């Protein structure tokens, strides 16, 4: 039986690991280039635009804080979509996608947390408050770490993926909490002024670098995500071949 026939009978022929690897090899250089380009443009814009009359220079923190905060949530959303793929279609690539996204999501959440803190000290006069937005992001961070730990604790990868998938989906309730916490509990944190119904309510002077940086960070996320997925596929391939080698040795010996 050849590989392709299995792939076609079992998975939609769009996405079997081998085909994914070929695709990744083709598009990764382009994505990396695009990411670098966006970052150059974004960084240039963010340091050349005017400071805010109210917030002064610190407004530049926004160009990092806001995109990474969005990506923190998007990372989890991607994991949730993958989780559905795992549970409903039992698709191995979905397993890989969820597993690869967790550390990336954690990293972006960490950046959002730390830049938020660094912004909070001059703006609110404190590094940290237990307000709803901040805490829910903190919880998101904990959940990323917990899911990474869970994945490591189970060594059968497909079982680990299915178990994590259930938790990922249950944990998704946190995402709307993050998004709407500022509206539900009136707190220190800014409420949405870009991603909201009725269009952005923010000066285009700030909107431009913000959007470019957002695109740059998003491109970075996807580049890394595809790379991490590729690594994971390779890792499993190595493990499978090692097992087979052990078994063959066992049989011959």
């Amino acid at each position: 039986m050849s590989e392709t026939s299995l792939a076609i009978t079992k998975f939609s022929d769009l996405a079997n690991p081998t085909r994914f690897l070929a695709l990744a090899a083709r598009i990764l250089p382009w994505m990396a280039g695009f990411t670098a380009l966006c970052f150059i443009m974004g960084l240039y814009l963010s340091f050349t635009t005017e400071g805010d009359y109210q917030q002064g220079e610190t407004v530049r923190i926004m160009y990092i804080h806001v995109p990474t905060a969005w990506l923190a949530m998007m990372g989890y959303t991607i994991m949730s979509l993958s989780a559905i793929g795992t549970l409903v279609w039992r698709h191995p690539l979905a397993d890989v996608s969820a597993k690869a996204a967790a550390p990336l999501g954690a990293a972006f959440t960490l950046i959002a947390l730390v830049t938020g803190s660094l912004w909070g000290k001059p703006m609110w006069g404190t590094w940290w408050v237990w307000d709803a937005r901040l805490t829910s992001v903190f919880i998101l961070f904990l959940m990323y770490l917990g899911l990474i730990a869970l994945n490591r604790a189970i060594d059968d990868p497909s079982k680990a993926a299915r178990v994590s998938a259930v938790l990922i989906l249950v944990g998704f309730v946190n995402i709307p909490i993050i998004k709407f916490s500022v509206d539900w509990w009136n707190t220190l944190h800014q409420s949405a002024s870009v991603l909201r119904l009725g269009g952005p309510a923010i000066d285009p002077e700030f909107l431009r670098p913000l959007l470019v940086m957002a695109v740059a960070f998003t491109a970075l996320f996807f580049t890394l995500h595809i790379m991490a997925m590729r690594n994971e596929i390779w890792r499993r391939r190595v493990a499978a071949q090692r097992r087979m080698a052990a078994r063959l040795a066992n049989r011959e010996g």
Partner: protein
Amino acid sequence: MHLAAANLAARRGEDLIFEGVSFRLESGEALVLTGKNGSGKSTLLRVVAGLLHQERGSVSFTDAQGNTLRRVGEISHYLGHRNAMKSELTVAENLDFWRRFLGQTHTAVSIDEAAEAVGLGGITHLPFGYLSAGQQRRFAFAKLLITYRPVWILDEPTAALDASGDHLFAELVEAHRRKGGIVLAATHQPLGLAEAQELRMAGFSHSGPGVWE
């Protein structure tokens, strides 16, 4: 009434343990799985019971009226390596719980009769944890008698049983078959069943490539 499996394949971890397993058992028939340690007997039984997802293939049960059921577990008794009894509760409490949980059927016997049938009448008031290994196994077997299910899936049922226990077990299985039941058992010891089919498991099948390769 029959139980049929077509072209089953199952995976443990990342490896295919077996593939292309098919069988068909009519009412009153028995299939005995044999094979070396680690050859996949328990795996196959768990797939049939619906406790493990098969990689390919299907299992189905067709009852006397011709209705086909895919979830064979629902009409089966499964006796695994572990006895599914709580050592803190008494035997009677354990059996009574399973009888009520699995659903009473009028064709089934009472708890005392079941204990009698496995040769241990009169000690159902003891906590399950106080029994010897063989006594525990016998009561685990009594669980199959307290509610009627047409299919019995047994994993090394006679482990820890003494000679009289083996005999008793064979008789109970034969009685179940006479009533039209179907029996699927994995074993290393001869079970003493009349006219049972045998399926030899061979272990790891290497024909198909894995997902990651």
